[in-house]
């Protein structure tokens, strides 16, 4: 099992951390890597990760923390770390927690407005198993933007966990850009704990990786507004699985979810969106949409909404579409002189643009447009 033998060789840490690691490790040992018999992992087989022989190795991390946000040390993370991303059920979160060593812990003080994005980028080491850990604690009424990115070369395993705790009235935009190597395994969990009347959005852009699993989970309070959007593009034999959980724990909260996928070749994708509306979460307003553009006969998408609604005065809608390029649109473009390949690219790009347009960080939007342009150009030939 990946890196597990090394657990016992880790140098001892502060007692609280040592305790956390050992507890997490015990959970991991009990859970083991999930199999496809586990409903949560039904379409995603992680046997290749379990079999792989990677050595635990920390990735290169680059962190930009614009003031008045501050980066704090691991010692100060004790009250919050691993409080939100539960490792009792999720073996990968348990594994990550067992190897917690260097945490990117960022604090945004109460009421602070951080104009520039907080940027955290991980560059994996080849043949390594990495367990990047991020904790961002945002004070009440503060405002910030967070951009996480993951990349690397060759074959490796990234198992990331990010916890975001946003205080009452905070405004937080989070972006995760996954551009791992096409031979990499990438498993990541985002756990967002959102305060009263907090406005939170997270965009997950998934482009790389051979085997990818993203879990994006948000727990809402009263009046919280949460948006979870995603764009996944897969070709060849890439497998990308997006699981989301939006937990309406309190009344008057709203959630919006739009995940779009573009699948070509023999790519495999999974979208599973769970919405929980708890008993006293009256007046919940929730909308979930998953749209897939399937460009080849061999690409497969499994999409499933999971609504668990325990309150009676709520509005919850969900919808999923799976389609090919629209023949009418193709003809319209071609009838104006645009060549077939270019028309195809234009429509694919337009499908993705819908998500890209929602990104508020200009530099990120520009770089994504460039990446997509290159990708859709590939499609054209």
């Amino acid at each position, binding site marked *: 099992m990946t890196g597990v033998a090394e657990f016992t060789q880790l140098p001892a840490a502060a007692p609280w951390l040592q305790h956390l690691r050992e507890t997490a490790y015990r959970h991991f040992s009990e859970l083991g890597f999930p199999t496809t018999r586990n409903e949560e992992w039904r379409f995603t087989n992680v046997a290749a990760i379990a079999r792989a022989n990677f050595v635990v190795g920390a990735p290169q991390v680059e962190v930009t923390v614009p003031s008045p946000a501050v980066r704090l040390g691991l010692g100060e993370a004790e009250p919050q770390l691993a409080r939100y991303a539960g490792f009792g059920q999720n073996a990968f979160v348990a594994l990550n927690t067992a190897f917690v060593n260097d945490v990117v812990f960022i604090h945004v003080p109460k009421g602070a407005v951080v104009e520039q994005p907080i940027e955290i980028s991980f560059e994996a080491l080849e043949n390594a198993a990495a367990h990047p850990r991020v904790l961002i604690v945002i004070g009440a009424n503060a405002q910030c933007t967070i951009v996480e990115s993951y990349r690397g070369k060759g074959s490796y395993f990234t198992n990331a966990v990010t916890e975001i705790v946003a205080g009452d009235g905070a405004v937080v935009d989070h972006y995760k850009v996954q551009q791992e190597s096409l031979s990499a395994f990438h498993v990541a969990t985002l756990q967002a704990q959102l305060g009263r009347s907090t406005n939170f959005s997270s965009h997950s852009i998934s482009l790389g990786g051979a085997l990818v699993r993203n879990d994006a989970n948000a727990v809402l309070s009263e009046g919280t507004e949460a948006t979870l959007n995603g764009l996944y593009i897969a070709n060849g034999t890439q497998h990308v699985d997006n699981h989301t959980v939006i937990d309406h724990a309190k009344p008057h909260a709203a959630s919006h979810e739009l995940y779009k996928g573009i699948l070509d070749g023999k790519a495999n994708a999974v979208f599973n969106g769970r919405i929980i509306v708890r008993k006293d979460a009256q007046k919940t307003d929730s909308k979930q949409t998953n749209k897939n553009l399937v460009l080849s006969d061999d690409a497969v998408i499994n999409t499933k909404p999971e609504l668990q609604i325990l309150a009676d005065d709520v509005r919850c809608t969900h919808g999923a579409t799976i389609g090919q390029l629209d*023949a009418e*649109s193709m*003809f*319209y*473009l*071609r*009838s*104006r*002189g645009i060549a077939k390949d270019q028309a195809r690219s234009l429509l694919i790009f337009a499908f993705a643009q819908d998500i890209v347009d929602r990104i508020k960080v200009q530099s990120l939007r520009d770089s994504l447009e460039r990446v997509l342009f290159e990708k859709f150009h590939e499609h054209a030939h």
Partner: protein
Amino acid sequence: MNGMALLEIKNLHATVGEREILKGIDLTVNPGEVHAIMGPNGSGKSTLAQVLAGRELYHVTDGQVIYDGEDLLELDPEERAQAGIFLAFQYPVEIPGVSNMYFLKAALNAVRKSQGQEELDALDFLNLVRDKMKLMDMDQTLLNRPVNTGFSGGEKKRNEIFQMAVLEPKLAILDETDSGLDIDALKLVANGVNTLRSKDRSMIVVTHYQRLLNYIVPDFVHVLSEGRIVKSGGKELALQLEESGYAGIGLVDEEEAVGTV
């Protein structure tokens, strides 16, 4: 070449699925001429328009179409457009995510490139389209909106004629450009079309109703029924149809028939 027809359709047959829709169309269009094609619903008017533009949904099973000396049926839709054919759609397609400006610039540059002209950058393009937008009374914000997305019926039809003004085709085919327009929008669209009439530009105007032809006065009128041209004449034929209906010349119009039940 003087005296050569721009478009020659000979014995054109076309099917969709198993059903034959065009059953032997013959039509010759010379440079600068405006031909109206009228006919009841289901007569094959729109099919003819789409076949000429290269819609793959329809299969040509017999006959010939010579355009500008070339076998038109051998060309892909984009090659037809590059050769100067323009179809104004009856139902312009909404394309979310592609701006009208990006779309039209790509189209114009594709046409220019095929004709050995230099491609235009965004600024040159804007300069070129400004007057044409005025012609169609179009707000510049329409350029930045996604193609036809959220446009009203009138805006969509105006956008079609605006595209035609930008692409400057040799043969424009207007497929029921009048449908769904109120009289003010109709006048605006007709005015745009009339401005684009020239001795080098031919037009085929497909319409169910004579109303449009009060504003776009054709040189010839053809009546299509059950996949064939059954009557041809001058502009007075349209007026005759207006008075007597398709029934007056012995045709059954599904729409009129339904109206009397």
